[in-house]
């Protein structure tokens, strides 16, 4: 099979690049080995949340500081204008699939975590941040955090206690409630089948939504604001949100839960369906195992399911993610990139990969390991030669720490956009 562009990796970065390429008329394929990191993400898009462990309120101002000091940071290679353009592109593409992303007019806003901590982020879905939330927030007197009896992955008491401590909520009463609706639990056979995804399916049924709304109204008497685990549907989330809000006359806010994260799943679905809608080819459940490289140009890749049939393209984007997603593989005393055997940035001694504590202030060094690229995001092979038709994007890139800097999705989107841009302009030149 022949394509203009093959993207290896179907997470947020690969999908963003894929949509951009296919929109510009490139015959594009994405090869995805399975569920991506979106399934355990907050579903909000972080651009830059922290610098030197301090919360960032103005991400685009902070970006100047960052790109001015860390030359190898992927954001430095992208540049601010491109990052802004990429974010707008991403927002618009999500909107085509009815996932509406809201920002705080170029400022970060906070989203509430399941533990009641606050994390700075840039875009959030409507049930997490919007104008109503922003306006109502200032006069808020009472918040009720609700769980549904039988759901094991959320403890509203912990969230309520933590949230209460925050100065922003000094004048606000925050309480935890549990809603017992046996009829919901009866829809599943075993108690461990009552997961976020199962409950989100229950929410997709209109009759259930009415019953749930009534239960929420009872539990949240006198409140302005109700926080629930993110259950409000996988497909019809906008309608469900509207129905719940109008029937309860309350603001309903969603908190991302333990995986599977429904908020992340919505973004994943939106990007996949957008890519398919535009005519992209999404190869799911397969994995690139081998590449044929001649004179620093990738000729073809081979997958586990089709070891004999080459998949050929003019350009390739490697968006295979970090260790967890299989983008890099670590061994006893070695780390390598399995598809193209690219040059990596890492420390050879294993005991330098991690920090002394789990929650060490400066996070862990291994999160900054990854592929070394030139400023156009093209990687090097082990002989230090640039591979001409490959670009890298997302968590496989070195020299940034997505968690410490709170920039995982922003980097994924920006570098995908940049990689796609270059492929598109070369493609147009070639025609």
């Amino acid at each position, binding site marked *: 099979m022949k394509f203009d562009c093959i993207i290896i990796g179907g997470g947020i970065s690969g999908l963003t690049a894929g949509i951009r390429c296919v929109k510009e008329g490139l015959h594009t394929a994405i090869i995805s080995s399975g569920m991506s990191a979106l399934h355990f993400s907050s579903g909000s898009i972080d651009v830059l949340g922290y610098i030197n462990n301090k919360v960032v309120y103005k991400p685009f101002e902070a970006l100047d500081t960052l790109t001015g000091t860390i030359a190898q940071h992927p954001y430095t290679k992208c540049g601010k204008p491109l990052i802004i353009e990429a974010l707008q592109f991403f927002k618009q593409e999500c909107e085509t699939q009815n996932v509406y992303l809201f920002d705080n007019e170029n400022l970060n806003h906070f989203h509430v975590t399941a533990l009641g901590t606050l994390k700075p982020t840039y875009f959030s879905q409507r049930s997490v941040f919007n104008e109503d939330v922003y306006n109502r927030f200032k006069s808020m007197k009472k918040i009720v955090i609700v769980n549904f009896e*039988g759901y094991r992955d959320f403890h509203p008491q*912990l969230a309520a206690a933590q949230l209460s401590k925050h100065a922003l909520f000094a004048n606000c009463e925050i309480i935890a409630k549990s809603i017992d609706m046996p009829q919901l639990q009866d829809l599943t056979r075993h108690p461990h089948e009552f997961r976020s995804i199962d409950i989100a399916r229950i929410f997709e049924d209109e009759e259930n939504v009415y019953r749930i709304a009534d239960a929420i109204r009872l539990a949240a008497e006198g409140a302005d604001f109700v926080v629930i685990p993110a259950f409000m549907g996988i497909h019809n989330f906008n309608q469900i949100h509207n129905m719940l809000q109008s029937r309860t006359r309350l603001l309903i806010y969603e908190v991302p839960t333990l995986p599977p994260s429904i908020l992340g799943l919505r973004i994943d679905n939106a990007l996949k369906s957008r890519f398919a809608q535009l005519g992209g080819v999404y190869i799911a459940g397969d994995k690139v195992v081998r590449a044929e490289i001649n004179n620093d140009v990738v000729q073809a890749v081979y997958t586990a399911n089709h070891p004999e049939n080459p998949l050929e393209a003019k350009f390739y984007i490697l968006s295979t993610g970090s260790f967890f997603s299989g983008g890099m593989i670590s061994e006893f005393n070695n780390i390598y990139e399995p598809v193209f055997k690219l040059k990596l940035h890492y420390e050879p001694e294993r005991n330098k990969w991690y920090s002394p504590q789990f*929650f060490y202030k400066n996070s862990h060094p291994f999160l900054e390991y990854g592929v070394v690229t030139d400023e156009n995001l093209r990687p090097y092979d082990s002989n230090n030669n640039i591979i001409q038709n490959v670009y890298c994007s997302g968590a496989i890139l070195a020299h940034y720490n*997505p968690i410490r800097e709170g920039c995982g999705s922003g980097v994924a989107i920006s570098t995908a956009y940049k990689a796609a841009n270059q492929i598109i302009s070369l493609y147009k030149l070639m025609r």
Partner: protein
Amino acid sequence: MKTLETDVIIIGGGATGCGVLRDCTLRGINAVLIEKNDIASGTTGRNHGLLHSGARYAVKDLESATECINENRILKKIAWHCIEPTGGLFVTLPEDDPTYHNRLLESCKFAGIDAKEISIKKALAIEPNLNPNILSAIWVPDGTIDPFRLASANILDSVERGATVFTHTEVERIMLKQNQVAGVQCYDKVTKEYFEVYAPIIVNASGVWGQHLCSTAGIELKMFPSKGSMVIIDYRINNVVVNRCRVPSDGDIIVPGDTVSLIGTTSRKVSYDKIDELIVDDDEIDVLLADGEKLIPNVSRARVLRAYCGVRPLVAVSGEMDGREISRGVVLIDHKERDNVQGLITIAGGKLMTYRLMAEMTTDLVAKKIGNNKGCVTHKIPLPGSEKRVGYTKKIKYFSGIPNSVVGSTHYRHGERVHNILSLQKRNYGLICECEMVTLGEVEYAIKNLKVKDLVDLRRRTRIGMGPCQGELCAYRAAGLFTEFGQFTPDTSTKLLKDFLEERFKGMKPVLWGDGLREFEFTYWIYQGLFGLGLVEEEEQ
């Protein structure tokens, strides 16, 4: 300040201390046990969980071997729910001295251990993952024992019979009145309160930590700390204990335990001031994996879950000796004889296997001192959970409606006490830890009945967070239940969660590569990326 009076104070909640508490209680002697961390949190919980047949000691230490096989038989009766009578093999590799095989067989015969030579073909049929190049094989009645459950069952029985137990409570010093012990000064690390307990008899069962404890009474007791490290392999790659048939050395045993397998053990001298901050060295991991692979070649392809180490509580006799050279025999000291301190007894040395015998010897001395003439019955009365031996299939039938795997795991861990844990209410049997099939009901039972004060304690009682994911999802699920079922504020629960993840990380660090690193990255994403747990402290300030 709170004060308390009793007949005997037992210091140390390892297997020996718990055994002494139970023995005293069964003889009608009032006893209080004080443990500075958790039950079985020291050496007891940091070994390979082997139910020795005694064969390992037969060649060099006949006395230990005989003790082992006797206790092996007793424990199978009184603590069957803590034991898996898997059986074990001693296999000779091509590079090993072939004469050791016969010496082992003869010595076992002499010690009364039922060891028999089996064909290589049969050994491979019993343990298909075994190295096919072995030269010979011996079958022995080894097994596995869960030290956490064993110690906890001793505590549970004692408490149900009226004993008092303080965990997370440090003994600051032993108080003397002239040459007679008067009691102990204690500090409760959870409530941050000081209190005193008075008794005419104090049993020092604090193992290697006894050196410091005795010094508070002005007594010199020199311990000889020797570190033993082990690695845990994800999944149970062997079903019987596999020993290497040679003079004891590093990396010569692979023990199956619950859902995992464990490669043991190294032996390294450590200085006394380092015993609370031991870490597994990278070269120990190299040795264990390399030698483990020789016994079961699959080891090289398995994922390593974690590495940990314990300190052997050996009492130094004399000179500079290797940890293996010293006898692992029992040391019972009446400090009246040795140091002219009336009422103080030290019980040390020995092994997990002989905890009950050590407790019996100690309690005999206690009984003699206070004029109690009831004999020991701990070898006859089963521990809670082992009262009745009911098969797995019967239990499944009884709890029909609950998934078999849930009933099986709960029964496996708690024996007859499964009836105090499981109920047909749907919420009760919802899984909190999927790796180890720990239900909400089991967590509730442990928090309410088993002296659980944090998530690490809960892990020792239930195996929560011990499986492949090392507490990825269950840690948060269980943390909230401390607020629901125990006297814990939400803030405390959040703090327990953070502490637990830090504790798990200690054992993951030395083996952080491959799938272990992937898993850790995922866990880090969840707890720091998604939950912002590391931010908790900052927000407080």
